[in-house]
């Protein structure tokens, strides 16, 4: 667990809190890889044959797989450990934030005094129901809870939490999806040089900052509905020397002018919004995008057409990790969703990229030129991991 890039808004854990965070990371990888890798065998060798002998047919979809799997003690044990471990991630970090909060808040305020970028808050913005309804992925307080005018504590919780969750596999800056995407786009579309970039649902800016490195001449904007996330994104970016213009704003109703961005993107945002919100956000993306601009949303894999066991595995979080909107997203036909808001079906595109922190650079570059990657695992930090995105040119 050594290796997270330090910046001014990270709280310092005690010796034992650091040891606990390190253990929780390793525990999660053990549950996921060592125990979790047995789930397929349990299904093929025990659960599926039992289902077949009872019903005279195989499970027809992920829901039947889930109902059968969740009666199996191996899967129950795995699930129970996953749930406890997820709770332990946040719990291992919270005391350090409680101690550091006044200092962190003061630092965030100071970083906003003479910034390279900017921070624009909107105290009148209403927290959308898909944010206030549940504490997503069991993070107590979710993204939006704030306790003072300068509160950044939920941002800190998310920033360190993601690092512990990914056991550092997201890179020192937790930016692996964004960095993979930015480098992929640069190689695949060498003539595309966005002047203005927008990230929707930026949380703490993990996946946006790489764009400042890859497209150094661009003007970069980020929005999030949460004030603590907006403050934290801005302070973190300033502390790391990046100019980012952060706005507390809802992607469903943006105040940006028509046709004002060359690249509009999001990274794992949609699966935490409702289906209605997603349509509105896409309409707004279409509106603010310049002709010739690119919209791209990096997200979870589609479950449509997927093997029912794999779909069950992908969607486990929807049921047991407080991800109530996950499934509405994973079952959406993205191309159709884009066409529905006015994008041309012929200008639809997809991204499938290996992880830039995992594969050798020449393999990464070759995959970007081909936009192709053989992979068995889906977005769960395995060796053959690849990141998927759905986009459209305007």
């Amino acid at each position, binding site marked *: *667990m*050594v290796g997270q890039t330090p910046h001014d808004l990270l709280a310092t854990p005690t010796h034992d809190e650091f040891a606990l965070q*390190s253990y929780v990371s390793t525990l999660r990888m053990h549950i996921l890889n060592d125990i979790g890798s047995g789930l397929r065998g*349990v299904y093929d060798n025990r659960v599926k044959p039992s289902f077949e002998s009872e019903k005279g047919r195989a499970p027809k979809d992920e829901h039947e797989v889930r109902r059968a799997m969740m009666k199996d003690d*191996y899967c129950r044990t795995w699930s129970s450990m996953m749930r406890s471990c997820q709770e332990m991630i946040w719990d291992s970090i919270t005391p350090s934030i409680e101690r550091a909060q006044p200092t962190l808040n003061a630092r965030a305020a100071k970083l906003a005094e003479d910034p390279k970028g900017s921070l624009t808050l909107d*105290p009148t913005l209403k927290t959308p129901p898909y944010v206030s309804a*549940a504490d997503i992925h069991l993070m107590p307080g979710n993204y939006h809870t704030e306790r003072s005018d300068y509160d950044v504590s939920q941002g800190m919780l998310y920033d360190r939490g993601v690092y512990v969750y990914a056991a550092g596999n997201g890179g020192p800056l937790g930016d692996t999806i964004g960095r993979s995407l930015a480098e992929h786009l640069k190689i695949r579309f060498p003539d595309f040089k966005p002047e203005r970039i927008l990230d929707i649902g930026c949380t703490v800016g993990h996946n946006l900052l790489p764009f400042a490195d890859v497209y150094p001449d661009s003007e970069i904007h980020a929005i999030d509905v949460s004030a603590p996330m907006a403050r934290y994104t801005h302070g973190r970016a300033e502390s790391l020397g990046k100019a980012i213009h952060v706005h507390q704003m809802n992607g469903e109703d943006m105040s940006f002018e028509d046709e004002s961005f060359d690249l509009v993107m999001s990274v794992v945002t949609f699966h935490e919004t409702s289906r209605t919100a997603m349509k509105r956000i896409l309409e707004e993306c279409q509106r603010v995008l310049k002709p010739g601009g690119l919209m791209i949303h990096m997200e979870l894999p589609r479950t449509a057409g997927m093997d029912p066991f794999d779909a069950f595995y992908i969607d486990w979080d929807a049921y047991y990790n407080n991800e109530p909107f996950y499934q509405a997203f994973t079952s959406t036909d993205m191309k159709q969703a884009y066409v529905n808001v006015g994008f041309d079906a012929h200008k639809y595109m997809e991204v499938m990229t290996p992880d830039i922190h995992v594969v050798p650079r020449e393999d990464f570059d070759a995959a970007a030129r081909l936009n192709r990657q053989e992979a068995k695992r889906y977005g769960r930090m395995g060796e053959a991991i690849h990141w998927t995105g759905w986009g459209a040119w305007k």
Partner: protein
Amino acid sequence: MSKTTDAPITLPRTAKGKRSVFFDDPAIDQMMTFIVELSAEVSVVYDRLDTVEHLLDEKGTISRDDIEAFRPNEEIETARNARREAYLKRVFRMHQEHAKDNDN
């Protein structure tokens, strides 16, 4: 929002929403939480002991402040991680007869 005080805060420890129950008897879910949490406590104590040993190797004496300030370098953390992985494999040993991945 008008609160600008720097008074200490208490953050919530549980997520909003009903906690999933996986076993027929919820007491087993409770026991699983106890066991997983206890496994973490043992690992933390082990790291603290390891810190004490490293400090004794390096300085011959230890203080609480030295322990608190100690952070493992990459080499020590790699060794600790290997120890954690072996520990996890021993303690959370599943009965694997059906769990063999057919793809591998």
